[in-house]
């Protein structure tokens, strides 16, 4: 039962470290702030289910992105062929495919060369050398040309769209002014947004579901006569207003009559100087200011539509040319709506629609209830196990209990240090650890008992007990660890919390049962020098 001095020091250093890192959890926030900087002041992170808050899982709408890409490709092909003066018919799309027929078969080769240039390689970003893949395959079938997006190309686009969306989502959520939102990527095409403290996620969802593609478009001469027009005249789109009931508008489609909002540099909520109603003011960069100036100058006296995500927000008349590159949007907003519109315009347009595929929110009172319930359950579990161990093993039970407490302290310390998130299932993991942590001690003690019954001396029985139980403890704990690791790999938030506490609990219990109990027993033994082990 000999312990080298460095071992004793190491054991106590580990436990002391555990105490220091676990301690901030017990201190009130103001004490923690006044502590010297070198002391760890991190506490365990409470999950949304414990502190209350909202979580939303967004998915980049693949279909929407593909349809945008194919539309764009069709527009580009139209442009290129027109520039090259190549006649074509039947330009159309189906799924991820765009096809067209070239009128003059002599032009097909030339057309293919031009279109191939459009299918520019996109970087996959998977390899350090920036290996690029073609975003589309161009094939020929007689005088027909078929352009197909490649899977690798689409995947790369989606990847880029997700990264871009994360940035935009971050800016929008930050602008809400909530504390410490967390935005992270989940899998290939999902984004998880967690906002602690936010109880009703509906406003968050509205902010995130907006693509924020802003356009200023001239209205057509002819405007709809009924509330439900069947079709728009040539060169016009039929769009509806955001009001209830929806008002239909015919809006010009040509690019000459449109200014895109992508040149916006800033937008702010404010109040109209005359009416005092909430408005959103915006500012263009130089290019946008120039185009906006030209459009308004040419069309003074005509109405134009401010279109957000294909909905008409308002359709004011152009009173004078707007040359400075600034303007304002009014549209019967509430203060909150104006604020949100300013946020989405400022943070830019999402590359594709985001769909909400999952959400959860927990009110702060339920969270607090859960924390209280978890604490009570943990305390009851500790007390019950402590009593049970003392009844079953007497003094050695007390040793095991010391190890159990040290184990819990270490567990809390590591959780604080790692800044792992403590969830309600995480608390369940801790309680389970409490129950199972003494298992190692039980195994050791039962072995000692047996060895003693076989007639070994106390020292031999103690040593044999620890040594022989070691392999068993290892084997049995590894299997539990495997289960915990698989749970962690499953990756769903709160359950991950359970897997973390369970896995950490298994590891720390192996340490405390094996080193700390052994050390305590060796001290006790050298003092008491008993004739028999009291087990």
């Amino acid at each position, binding site marked *: 039962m000999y312990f080298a001095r460095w071992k004793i020091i190491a054991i106590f250093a580990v436990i002391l470290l555990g105490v220091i890192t676990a301690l901030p959890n017990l201190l009130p926030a103001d004490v923690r702030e006044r502590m010297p900087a070198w002391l760890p002041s991190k506490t365990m992170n409470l999950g949304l289910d414990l502190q209350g808050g909202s979580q939303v*899982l967004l998915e980049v709408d693949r279909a929407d992105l593909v349809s945008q890409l194919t539309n764009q490709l069709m527009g580009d092909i139209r442009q290129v062929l027109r520039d090259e003066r190549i006649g074509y018919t039947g330009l159309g799309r189906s799924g991820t495919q765009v096809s067209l027929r070239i009128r003059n078969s002599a032009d097909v080769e030339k057309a293919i060369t031009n279109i191939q240039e459009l299918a520019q390689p996109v970087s996959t970003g998977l390899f350090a050398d920036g290996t690029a893949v073609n975003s589309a395959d161009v094939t020929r079938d007689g005088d027909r040309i078929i352009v197909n997006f490649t899977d690798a190309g689409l995947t790369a686009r989606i990847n880029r769209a997700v990264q871009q969306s994360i940035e935009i989502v971050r800016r929008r959520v930050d602008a809400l002014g909530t504390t410490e939102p967390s935005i992270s990527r989940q899998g290939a095409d999902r984004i998880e947004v967690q906002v602690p403290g936010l109880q009703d996620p509906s406003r968050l969802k509205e902010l995130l579901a907006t693509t924020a593609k802003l356009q200023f478009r001239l209205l057509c001469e002819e405007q709809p006569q009924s509330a439900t027009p069947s079709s728009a005249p040539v060169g016009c789109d039929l769009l509806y207003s955001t009001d209830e009931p929806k008002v239909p508008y015919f809006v010009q489609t040509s690019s000459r009559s449109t200014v895109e909002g992508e040149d916006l540099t800033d937008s702010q909520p404010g109040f109209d100087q005359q009416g005092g109603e909430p408005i959103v003011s915006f500012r263009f960069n130089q290019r946008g200011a120039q185009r906006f100036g030209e459009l308004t100058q040419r069309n003074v006296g005509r109405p134009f539509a401010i279109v957000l995500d294909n909905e008409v927000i308002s359709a004011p008349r152009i009173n004078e040319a707007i040359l400075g590159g600034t303007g304002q949007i009014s549209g019967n907003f509430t203060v909150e709506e104006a604020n949100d519109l300013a946020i989405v315009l400022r943070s830019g347009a999402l590359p594709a629609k985001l769909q*909400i595929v999952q959400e959860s929110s927990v009110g702060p009172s339920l969270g607090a209830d*859960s924390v209280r319930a978890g604490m009570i359950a943990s305390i009851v579990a500790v007390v*019950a196990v402590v009593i049970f161990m003392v009844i079953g093993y007497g003094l050695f039970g007390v040793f095991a209990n010391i190890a159990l407490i040290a184990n819990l302290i270490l567990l809390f310390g590591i959780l604080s240090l790692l800044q792992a998130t403590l969830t*309600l299932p995480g608390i369940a993991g801790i309680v389970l650890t409490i129950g199972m942590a003494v298992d190692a001690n039980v195994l050791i003690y039962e072995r000692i008992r047996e060895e003693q019954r076989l007639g070994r001396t106390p020292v031999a029985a103690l040593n044999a007990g620890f040594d022989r139980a070691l392999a068993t403890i290892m084997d049995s704990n590894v*299997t539990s660890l*495997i*289960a915990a690791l698989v749970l962690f790999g*499953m990756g769903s938030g709160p359950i991950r919390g359970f897997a973390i506490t369970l896995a950490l609990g298994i590891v720390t219990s192996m340490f405390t049962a094996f080193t700390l109990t052994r050390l305590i027993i060796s001290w006790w033994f050298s003092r008491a020098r008993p004739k028999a082990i009291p087990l």
Partner: protein
Amino acid sequence: MRPIRFIPDDTKFQFMRFARIGYALSGFCMIASLVLFFTVGLNYGIDFKGGTLLEIQTKGPADLGNLRRTLSGLELGEVEVQGLGTPNQVMIRIGQQETEQATQESISKVRGALGADVTYNRTEIVGPKVSSELAQVGTISVLVAVVAILIYVWFRFEWQFAIGAVAALIHDVVLTIGLFCVLGLQFNLSIIAAILTIVGYSLNDTVVVFDRIRENLRKYKSMRLIDLIDSSLNSTLSRTVLTAATTFIAMMSLFLFGGEVIRGFTFAMLWGVIVGTYSSIYVATPILLLVGVKRDWSSVTDKAKVAVNNGNASKAKSATMP
């Protein structure tokens, strides 16, 4: 103060005499569970079925009938309204809507219908896409765990042991599913987590018994296998009972005081402790009797000796310095 023995020393239960009854009992329960699973089926929660779960708090005592009428008026399909302990707490479940979009709209409809006098304690919305994925991930993770454990036990022991261990695991999983079918309890993602933990716990128990059997196989080369197994089970019995007891106590306190949200999870765990302990004695071990085990462990023992010697490098001193 003398410790109290919960299990006396030198018990000589002839566990394996009842192995046949064990097979019959386990076999019957497993078949019954499977039949229930395919006929009655599980009461899947929104994690797997998709849908919406709301926990609301009303100002005064809630009128469940009225709530039910209001909500079914919205024509959202399956709507379930249920009291939650206190009179002003209500749980509302709404079945899955066709699309993600429709799901979002259903929520605003419900909020509109319930008015402003209601506090929302908890909202869970799982869209159709995610729910099918979660079900898939849940099933795969249980399979992955079983395979990983099979491989581990195979490496550390012998294939016969691995078969026994996995038979016990499948037994535990099937019986837990059976129990949830019988009681009609919500089967959601946290129950999958509980099952995985049960798998870990049950195996923990099984491995301790196996360890002792392996040790005894080396020690008593000519003992009848059935006696050897009985003796191994008896010598680990005290530990089995004590650990099961402490784990059960801890889980019981979580079940009683841990709150409504994780009650299903802790219930499954309590069951898991019982069924896991049973299966390591009456499912995992008897399999060794059925398939037989390798009795010549000499090569393995050599390896083990090396390991023990390494492990004892520091103990060499300890014999002299207690």
